[in-house]
């Protein structure tokens, strides 16, 4: 029971982290990411059950290492497949797409409500694509202050979209 509980916890905790990394490597619109994540989780559970995880590293590092191997395998396999088949079309789940869209709308509205000093930093840094140094120079503040404003803006936005 203890092992079962741990495994559930592991799945709940690491699925989003794994999904994030896999999607970054495979491409956000690539429909394969979910299968790859499931394969890795199955693999992790099997290894834990077979006591291959001996606690020499953290469980996070253990899962990270397995995911790295799977990413390499996937890329190798994909480059072979691509020689004969075209890239599959993307098909994000409709409900997920709707949820993301709604959240993006909320976040956009929340950014509009921020104080100008935070908006200015986000505008120059993320929209205009200036470097932190360039933003600092343009606004007459230090680069450290630029990072602090981005961090603080993120915190405020988190609060605003929770409302």
């Amino acid at each position, binding site marked *: 029971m203890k092992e079962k509980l741990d495994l559930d916890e592991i799945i709940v905790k690491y699925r989003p982290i794994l999904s*994030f990394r896999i999607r970054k490597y495979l491409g956000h619109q690539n429909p394969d990411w979910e299968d790859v994540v499931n394969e890795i989780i199955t693999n992790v559970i099997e290894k834990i059950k077979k006591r291959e995880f001996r606690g020499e590293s953290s469980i996070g590092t253990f899962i990270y290492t397995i995911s790295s191997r799977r990413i390499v395998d996937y890329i190798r396999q994909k480059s072979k497949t691509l020689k004969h088949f075209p890239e599959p079309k993307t098909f994000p789940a409709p409900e997920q797409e709707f949820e993301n869209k709604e959240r993006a709308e909320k976040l956009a509205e929340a950014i509009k409500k921020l104080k100008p000093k935070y908006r200015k930093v986000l505008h120059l840094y993320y929209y205009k694509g200036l470097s932190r140094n360039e933003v600092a120079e343009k606004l007459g503040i230090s680069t450290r202050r630029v990072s602090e404003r981005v961090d603080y803006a993120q915190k405020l936005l988190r609060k605003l979209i929770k409302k």
Partner: protein
Amino acid sequence: MKKCKFDDLIDSYLLNKLEREERENFEEHYFNCQRCFEKMVGREELMNVVKNKGQMIFADEERQEEKKEVLFIEKILSFLTPRQWAYAAVSVALVLIVLLNVVPLLKKTPQPPFFLDLDKEERIRGESISLISPVIDIKTVPSQFMWAPLGNDVEYKISIYFNHQPFWTNTTKENTISLPEDVKNRMEASRKYSWQVKAFSPQGILLAVSPKVQFKITSCK
């Protein structure tokens, strides 16, 4: 809350600006640091929204920037009235025309052309020759005439005049010449003579002429 040392890598990671080793270290880190992972997820969402909806979100900022640019141009334009701008433009054009025409001339001929009047009818363009001696009244008949040299391969023609009539003439490649005894004997005291030197190229082209300088022999030899 204490800041994580990986905090500053979040943006670079999302923008794919990290080197392989740095990227893998950071990835391993966020598998072990829930706080960094959550922050990164939020940051990525923020980046995507700004990227996709930035035009709508930052419409005011964009307008302000445009306005700033327009104001800057207007500020420059309002510095002068349209009429003054027209005058300024014409003045600048004139100055440019003058400069464009004068500068090449200045480069080609660093000195203005030199004209020398040989007499009332004749005027030549060229360098001048400075006569060294005699140039003032002298006590005895001069035995030597000297002038400033012009350079190599120049032939000088010296002429001595009395009463505006040629008295004696000779040529030399030196910048000095001695008067022959018979000429010296012909020269008399209390008389005014003048002399002049002309320089010629080996092809016989007149290069330079000295002014006609008068001298008087105050006593006899």
